[in-house]
């Protein structure tokens, strides 16, 4: 009875959803609303106007920079929430204080390969971050790669050694790097051009536009990596 009711409800729910999907404009159709108004403008003038050859970067960091500013803040807030929950649990149960690294035997193959590859992974991550305004990529992607690198390094060398690479005081600053650079660039725009997150518009200031974009990319990359690594370290901490 319960199963039949569930199935019936699911079908009832699926019907309007499928109906709505059928109403969507066909994928890639040039006459559909999202492609008719702002897209042509982005594609035609984005590279000159917004400071990056990669139009995706133009949209997420310049045209819709305010949106991305909010997203970056959300990511930081999620770290704050994770830390609040995990550190709170540890404090209340009194466990985990001074627990050594998770004693996981790492196979020599894994250890060797990670040690061999990590400089190349780091180089690739830096390339992805810095090249984000020319080719697909950018702060979010590069940051995720650095975060993954920090995690595999932790697995091989142990947490305390990996954490020692980044002093605790610096770590705080790195975790907040993404919203911080965004707000700094935003306020610079406010002071210099009259609007929060206003980018320089004049043609002779193209270098400044690009410089701001790269600054934000680096901020997002470093901040994202620090957040991912911190979540992993905090989760691994309490036994």
């Amino acid at each position, binding site marked *: 009875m319960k199963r039949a009711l569930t199935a019936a409800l699911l079908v009832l729910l699926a019907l309007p959803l499928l109906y709505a999907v059928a109403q969507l404009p066909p994928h890639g159709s040039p006459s559909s609303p999202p492609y008719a108004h702002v897209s042509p403008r982005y594609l035609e003038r984005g590279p000159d106007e917004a400071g990056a050859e990669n139009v995706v970067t133009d949209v997420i960091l310049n045209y819709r920079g305010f949106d991305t500013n909010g997203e970056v803040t959300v990511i930081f807030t999620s770290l704050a929430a994770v830390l609040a929950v995990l550190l709170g649990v540890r404090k209340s149960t009194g466990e985990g204080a001074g627990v050594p690294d*998770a004693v996981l035997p790492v196979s020599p193959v894994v250890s060797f390969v990670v040690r061999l590859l990590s400089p190349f992974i780091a180089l690739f991550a830096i390339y992805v971050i810095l090249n984000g305004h020319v080719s*697909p990529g950018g702060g979010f992607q590069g940051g995720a790669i650095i975060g993954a690198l920090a*995690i595999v390094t932790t697995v091989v060398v142990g947490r305390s050694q990996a954490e020692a690479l980044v002093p605790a005081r610096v770590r705080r600053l790195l975790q907040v790097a993404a919203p911080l650079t965004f707000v700094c660039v935003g306020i610079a725009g406010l002071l210099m051009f009259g609007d929060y997150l206003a980018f320089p518009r004049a043609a002779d200031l193209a270098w400044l536009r690009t410089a701001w974009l790269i600054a934000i990319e680096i901020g997002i990359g470093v901040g994202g990596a620090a957040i991912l690594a911190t979540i*992993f370290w905090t989760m691994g901490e309490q036994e």
Partner: protein
Amino acid sequence: MSRAFDVTLLLLLIACALAVIRTKDLLGSVVIFSTYSLVMCLVWQHRGAPDVAMTEAAVGAGITTVLFLVAIGKTVRRER
């Protein structure tokens, strides 16, 4: 050809999604879930969104999987 590729990827996605729910072994479930992310990554790439594909590969297949593994390590491996 392109359509056949699309359909194959989408069928694989559905198969992975079902397998994730059906698997009682959480470790296996997580591994299948990372496969789901990899297939999704191919779908993004095929739809012309390399930016999203990179994020999906790094976060979806990589970091999420690791975080799930840590969480399983802290709890139990079998679903009750």
